[in-house]
């Protein structure tokens, strides 16, 4: 089958690989019909995630048709079209029982600090991902969710990560009616977090980024106030000025390790890897939030250390929350939002590429070329 293959930092290609096999009675094999390149894939692409082995297939955002099931799979059947949440979750461990499907304790041998994620390094379990024609899906009774009749596959594929992560970012921010919500990052997740903040009753939503085309998009899509942080001077000071000198009630970091905006963070976090990524957005978030406010982190950082003003977090009485998204927990609500028209995920898709051009897709997305916001990959078995 055709699959994306990682060869080293900023080097990927499409190759023929062996078909995945059932390895466990609760496995399923899914024929991929859509997969996405995610902003967090860029951390792998740039070589910033430890234990990213050459030969890996990335891709944690995919939907597809079930073509084979293990002997213990009862909740889905061959022929079903399913949304595959990006987390691999057993559904019965201490954490899954609490709805923390992103923190499953029976799916990732290699690390305890993160649950398993499809196609996201051996640090996240060593599972091949869905940027391929077929994928092995463990615990198929738990994660895969049948796509409702009539739902567009482009909407469905964004329910595997982007929409739930944006939604959970807003949820973790503990937004109360009338709150001012500040979102760092106008990538796909930041855009969705800004849109979802309104669902929780935000009174004001502000987004900061440095790409004008993305700011223009989020300004219309969310809708919200959107500013280029390269044009406003000190972004924290700017936020204080426009929030009656108090700061935002809730701040969402939807950027993570690839953040721009601070030379020291860039050099130590992205160029030399002395930190687990550039923590510029998180640094700003802690300083821009109101005293007693909430910082919600969905931007991805590595497993070691980051330079952030933790003393300010203590002195300001902040609540800091973060997690990988529990996609399975959120899917029923989010499917309802999409079907009712409150959320329109597919509007963020800007590029559709055949899987053979996966290297071009990564470059396009990582370098933000051709006003790219969200690229999806189409396997050769899918009508294009």
């Amino acid at each position, binding site marked *: 089958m055709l699959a994306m293959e990682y060869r*080293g930092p900023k080097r990927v290609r499409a190759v023929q690989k062996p078909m995945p096999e059932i390895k466990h009675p609760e496995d399923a094999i899914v024929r991929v019909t859509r997969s996405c390149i995610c902003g967090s894939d860029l951390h792998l692409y740039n070589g910033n995630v430890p234990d990213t082995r050459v030969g890996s297939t990335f891709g944690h955002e995919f939907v597809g048709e079930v073509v084979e099931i293990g002997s213990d799979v009862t909740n889905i059947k061959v022929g079903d079209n399913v949304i595959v949440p990006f987390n691999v979750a057993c559904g019965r461990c201490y954490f899954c029982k609490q709805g923390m499907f992103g923190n499953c304790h029976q799916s990732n041998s290699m690390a305890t600090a993160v649950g398993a994620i499809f196609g996201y390094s051996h640090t996240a379990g060593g599972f091949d991902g869905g940027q391929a024609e077929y994928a092995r899906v463990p615990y198929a009774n738990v994660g895969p969710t049948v796509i409702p009749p009539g739902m567009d596959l482009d909407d469905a594929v964004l329910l595997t990560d982007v929409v739930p992560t944006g939604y959970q970012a807003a949820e973790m921010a*503990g937004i109360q009616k009338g709150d001012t919500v500040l979102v760092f990052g106008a990538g796909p997740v930041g855009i969705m977090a800004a849109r979802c903040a309104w669902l929780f009753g935000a009174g004001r939503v502000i987004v900061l980024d440095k790409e004008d085309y993305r700011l223009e998009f989020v300004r219309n899509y969310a809708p919200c106030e959107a500013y280029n942080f390269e044009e406003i001077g000190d972004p924290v000071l700017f936020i204080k000025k426009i929030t009656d000198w108090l700061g935002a009630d809730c701040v969402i970091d939807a950027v993570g390790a690839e953040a721009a905006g601070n030379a020291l963070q860039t050099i130590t976090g992205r160029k030399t890897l002395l930190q687990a990524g550039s923590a510029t957005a998180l640094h700003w978030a802690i300083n821009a939030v109101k005293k007693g406010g909430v910082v919600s982190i969905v931007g991805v950082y590595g497993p070691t250390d980051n330079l952030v003003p933790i003393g300010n977090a203590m002195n300001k009485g902040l609540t800091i929350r973060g997690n990988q998204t529990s996609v399975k927990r959120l899917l029923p609500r989010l499917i309802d939002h999409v079907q009712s028209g409150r959320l329109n995920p597919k509007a963020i898709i800007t590029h559709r590429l055949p899987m053979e051009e996966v290297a071009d897709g990564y470059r396009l997305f990582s370098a933000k070329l051709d006003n790219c916001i969200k690229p999806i990959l189409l396997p050769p078995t899918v009508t294009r």
Partner: protein
Amino acid sequence: MQTKKIDYTQINGWGVDADPENDPTYPMQHREDAPPRDIFYDRPTQQPVDVEVLHSNERPDVTAVFGTTLPPSGLSGAIRRFAFKYSENEYKHWLPLIFADRVDVVEGVLKDLAHGHVPNIFAEKGYPMEWKYNRTAFVTKMATIAAITVGTVLLLNSGKDKKKAKYARGYRGK
């Protein structure tokens, strides 16, 4: 800079998920709905361990399911085995893993060559997209890299020439 607030009353779905009980100090579920926090559960069936699986020493065993596609191998594999002797709390775990990733890249190129495949770095890096959408910056960047490379090589070679000349003078008894 002018700021303009949005009239949120016109936004489809505004406030439909507002929940005064969403207390940010409590994660992701309502207390009254929370199941008992029982740490005991029926472990899923164990996937047969038929490849080498490194597992964090912060857990006693391999998880019930695991990825099988790339067991550790070669020098990078040996470094990864060393790394997994240490907990996730230790730099001795993470830094060797990053180093192993870089070794793995070299091993990957060698394996390609051993199989008679010369990697198309230009294509693998997606440079056709840079050429198509970002040509001026791309050409400038490549020219800069080429100039620095050529300059470095010339500098190193001139150093060698000086050493040779000095050695020759010494040999003549100067």
